[in-house]
């Protein structure tokens, strides 16, 4: 029992650190790339990585409140991505 718990905790910490590193790397790529659609894709990607971070934290604490926060973040990221894409393509929001 304790061995399985230890393995689970180690895997969660590995996932947490990996996602933090991935967020840093994708922000560096955001800085380097100049094409506007690349930046849009990377913004969407960073929102997804933060959602993954929240999901891992919900297992680590364990606290189901983080999943609620993740649901709100996913909804806002979706609306933001679609609004920005439409704004760039049509030069107007609505």
């Amino acid at each position, binding site marked *: 029992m304790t061995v399985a718990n230890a393995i*689970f905790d180690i895997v969660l910490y590995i996932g947490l650190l990996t996602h933090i590193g991935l967020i840093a790397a994708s922000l560096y790529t955001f800085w380097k790339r100049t094409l506007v659609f690349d930046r849009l894709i990377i913004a969407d990607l960073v929102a997804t990585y933060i959602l993954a971070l929240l999901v891992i934290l919900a*297992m680590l604490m364990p606290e189901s409140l983080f*999943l609620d926060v993740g649901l709100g973040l996913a909804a806002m990221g979706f609306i933001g991505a679609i609004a920005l894409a439409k704004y760039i393509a049509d030069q107007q929001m609505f």
Partner: protein
Amino acid sequence: MPDFVLIILLLLAALFVLAGTVLSVIGLVGLKRLPDMYTRLHATGKVGLFGVVLLLLGVFFFGIYQADWTIILRAVLLFLFLLIVGPTAAHAISSAAYRFGQEPYLGPDGKGGRDDLARDVRQKAEELLAEHRRKKKKEK
């Protein structure tokens, strides 16, 4: 529940968390290495669908292990929401890029692929133009 079932649930959750992390890394590698905006979008769309959804499967098994219904229900809700939202956002971005005039990558010599959407768009534009001319003739 008996002890070995709990151990198996925890190990399954750990396995899914590991798989989701690996797919997240693959998404960033694709973003770094692929030649074209559309292919990069293809690579990063995998993170939203498979990376986070596999993590949520891990949360599902973890909720069964904890016997906590609030965690299970929220995981299923987020799972279904992501399955709808991820492809929709990717499609919106790629269609916006196409309307903006972003050229797809067609191989190193520029002849590797084909652009079906351009043909469809041209066909539709020609039909609209023919209809417009017919209407103008009638008015005269």
